[in-house]
């Protein structure tokens, strides 16, 4: 059994699974139930000056039969009295001393920061998280993502926090910026030991086409809110990957957030450099109970990979995250269809016809028919026998790939509904490995300086 406990900039946590600051961490009763369910830590719903929330405040996006592929909210920070929150936090820490309790904070002035940090530390909180991410309501008041998007301001406030605090400080970043490295570097300069990201992404969830009002609806109006849930995971991973690749920023502890719903998502964040992960939407959707599977899944995965602890997994995939210009241009793949698995739906065929390079064919067609269907290249060998898909209904036809034309884009593999039916196989290209950067260096391809420069370089060759 692998060791799931982690060390997050000096603070130990029984496992890397934390609840993100959000409705699941609204109250002491909730957080205690979550700890009972197995969560290793919780970031309390952001504390600050009392606010009033609107209704409704959530919007959901479904995809196909999947409910809540994405969620958005226009909720602000906690709407409960500060004293009540602090009392409950103290109680939680008293009863669960080994679990990680993190206070999330958001106020305006230096004095307010000093005061709230003192109060939060008084509860026994292990860490402080500065909420520089809320993309609605608070930013209009000069807080939240308004801070997160302004590196100078972020740096200044983070510096105050580090100065006032005796426990480690986490800066929670907003994804609503042009370049995530700017706030990241600002945090480094401020001397914080840890980052968390992402907070929610500015979004409009949809439009009610009958009422002609965007969603979620508040009376006859709406506003942009924050997007989260499974749909944002790729964005969160990318932003975190950028930070963990950065020579200075990667030295900070990072708590990965954004669309994490299961152990596999968590493992991916950790492999890309996270030390802990935080979960909000998945818990809002399915409850605290999902952590059972997260712990078991991650533990079994580590065992299977021969890793003894979460820290062994951490950052494993970071070196493989490169610039485009560092990728091998000589590497070649082609699609291969497993005739025994194919069910004959022709989804790969239509995707390749209209969405890629017209290199998947339906067997049994004459050259003439193929051309009429839109193929401009006819493979030298046309199998005209109708291959019956063994896994399909009688008469189902297994399409075939024209290897010479296949560009290896893998669109077909992505649309095929049958697992492992289409695989991408390596074809030896016969060429030595070469990247675009290599070519630029050698002057054999486009070079900086535009088309003229390229032409000149080519002539000079």
């Amino acid at each position: 059994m692998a060791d799931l406990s982690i060390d997050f900039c000096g603070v130990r946590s029984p496992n890397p699974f934390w609840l993100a600051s959000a409705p699941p961490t609204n109250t002491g009763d909730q957080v205690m139930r979550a700890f009972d369910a197995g969560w290793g830590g919780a970031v309390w719903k952001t504390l600050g000056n009392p606010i009033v929330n609107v209704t409704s405040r959530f919007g959901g996006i479904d995809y196909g039969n999947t409910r809540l592929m994405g969620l958005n909210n226009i909720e602000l920070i906690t709407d409960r009295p500060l004293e009540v929150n602090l009392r409950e936090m103290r109680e939680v820490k008293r009863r669960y001393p080994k679990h990680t309790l993190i206070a999330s904070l958001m106020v305006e002035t230096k004095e307010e920061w000093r005061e709230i940090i003192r109060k939060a530390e008084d509860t026994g909180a292990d860490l402080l998280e500065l909420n520089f991410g809320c993309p609605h309501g608070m930013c209009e008041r000069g807080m939240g993502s308004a801070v997160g998007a302004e590196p100078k301001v972020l740096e200044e406030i983070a510096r105050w926090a580090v100065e006032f605090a005796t426990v480690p400080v986490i800066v929670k970043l907003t994804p609503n910026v042009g370049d995530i490295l700017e706030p990241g570097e600002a945090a480094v300069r401020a001397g914080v030991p840890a980052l968390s990201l992402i907070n929610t992404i500015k979004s409009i969830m949809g439009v009610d086409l009958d009422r002609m009002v965007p969603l979620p609806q508040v009376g006859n109006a709406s506003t942009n809110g924050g997007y989260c849930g499974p749909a944002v995971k790729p964005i969160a991973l990318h932003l975190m990957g950028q930070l963990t690749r950065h020579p200075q920023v990667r030295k900070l502890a990072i708590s990965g957030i954004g669309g994490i719903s299961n152990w596999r998502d968590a493992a991916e964040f950790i492999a890309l450099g996270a030390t802990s992960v935080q979960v909000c939407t998945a818990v809002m959707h399915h409850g605290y109970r999902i952590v059972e599977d997260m712990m078991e899944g991650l533990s079994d995965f580590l065992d299977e990979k021969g890793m003894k602890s979460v820290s062994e997994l951490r950052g494993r995939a970071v070196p493989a995250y490169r610039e485009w210009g560092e990728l091998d241009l000589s590497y070649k793949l082609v699609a291969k269809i497993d005739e025994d698995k194919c069910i004959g739906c022709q989804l790969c065929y239509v995707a390749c016809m209209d969405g890629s390079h017209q290199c998947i064919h339906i067997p049994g067609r004459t050259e003439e028919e193929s051309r009429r269907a839109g193929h401009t290249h006819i493979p030298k060998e046309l199998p005209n026998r109708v291959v019956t898909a063994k896994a399909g209904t009688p008469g189902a036809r297994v399409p075939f790939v024209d290897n010479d034309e296949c560009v290896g884009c893998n669109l077909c593999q992505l649309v095929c509904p049958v697992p492992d039916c289409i695989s991408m196989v390596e074809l030896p290209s016969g060429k030595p490995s070469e990247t675009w950067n290599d070519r630029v260096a050698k002057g054999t391809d486009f070079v900086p300086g535009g088309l003229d420069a390229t032409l000149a370089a080519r002539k000079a060759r």
Partner: protein
Amino acid sequence: MEQKRWELPPGRAEEGFEDKKPLFTLAEAVAESNRCLYCADAPCIKACPTAINIPEFIRKIGTGNVKGAARTILSANILGQSCAQACPVEVLCAGSCVYTGWGREPIAIGRLQRYAVENTLPKSPNLFQARPPTGKRVALVGSGPASIAAAGLLALEGHTCIIYERKQIPGGLNTLGIAPYKLKGPQALKELEWVLSLGRIELRTGVEVVEHATAPGQLAASELLSTHDAVFLGLGLGADSRLGVPGEEGPGVEGATHLIERLKVEPGFKLEGVKHALVVGGGNTALDIAHELALLGVQVSMVYRRSEKEMGGYVHELDAARLDGVRLVESRQPVEVVRKDGKVVAVKLAATREGKPVPGTEELVPTELVVMAIGQERATQVAKAFPGVELDSRGRVKVAAATHRTGHPKVWSGGDCVNGGKEVVNAVAEAKLAVADIQRHLVGE
């Protein structure tokens, strides 16, 4: 043209039957449509005799474009409502769904089709606009699915259609024959009314087309020909065949389609004193009536002269009938209906070999009702009243396969009277072929 409403009397036995495949709710329809893979070159389309673009209409349901889904369905199959409910989808569209071969539940295509059509037509009956009148008149003999589909399509082309139906209740077997747990008479009639509303279609019930008119309510074939620019024969099949065994004549022995018709249209229909029934035959009509009787609380045995494997009826229908209590007795044949004081009390069954009774193997099986479902006679004799129209050796109207034109240059035909008895969807498909050719003939397109 004044729209006629067709009403069936209340208190009919079929009203008591529950839908075996009830109308989907919105949530069910969306969930099911989202399962569809939206196959390209989809096998389900090829398996539908009317070639409805199934993935397209299913996708439309998934996106909330239900009206568009109905348009897709009805433009390929104008009787999309009754087909959705009556089609043996297990062997047609859904039977070829890629999920079937993959070992997964196929898409419930029929139910999705019903969802789209049933939720659209009452709200938006004007999905299609008929072309301006051409002045051409087409006569349609019979008002079953074949004629109804043909009339609707011809009316959309701007032709005037007059349907002649010998019965008082129109719709053919769609109204009078389909099992009530699939499609009820009033539903078939509502669909028929919608088709009538598409253009100038007149439906004359109680008019039988005959060779020589001798009585009121009869119309001679020659007169029909002389007053119309084209004629479509949608005659269907005729009365139930008889076995020809002693004791068969008299009360207590019914023809299957006749009994089904009574279940569907006769007010206050009751099976007085019937605890057991014996259904003779192994086709789908036999399965239908056996299943219907079982649902009415009768103990039903189906007697078939060959083995289960050789039965003509669909496996899925037999399975469903069995679930509701029908018992199949294989390799047996009635050789006599036994009566006491005129009433049926038993049937003498003989074991069979290769479908023939083996003497000396008779046994008595008590029953109060015997239903003959061994086929139907041909209603096609009247076809010969149209000069040039020929029947084949099995009494089916001969047509050219691609055009459904008969030997008479002005006469086309389709449906059961041509194919010998298939499904509603085949009648529609054949009507489409015929209409395409009638159109070429009438306007020279």
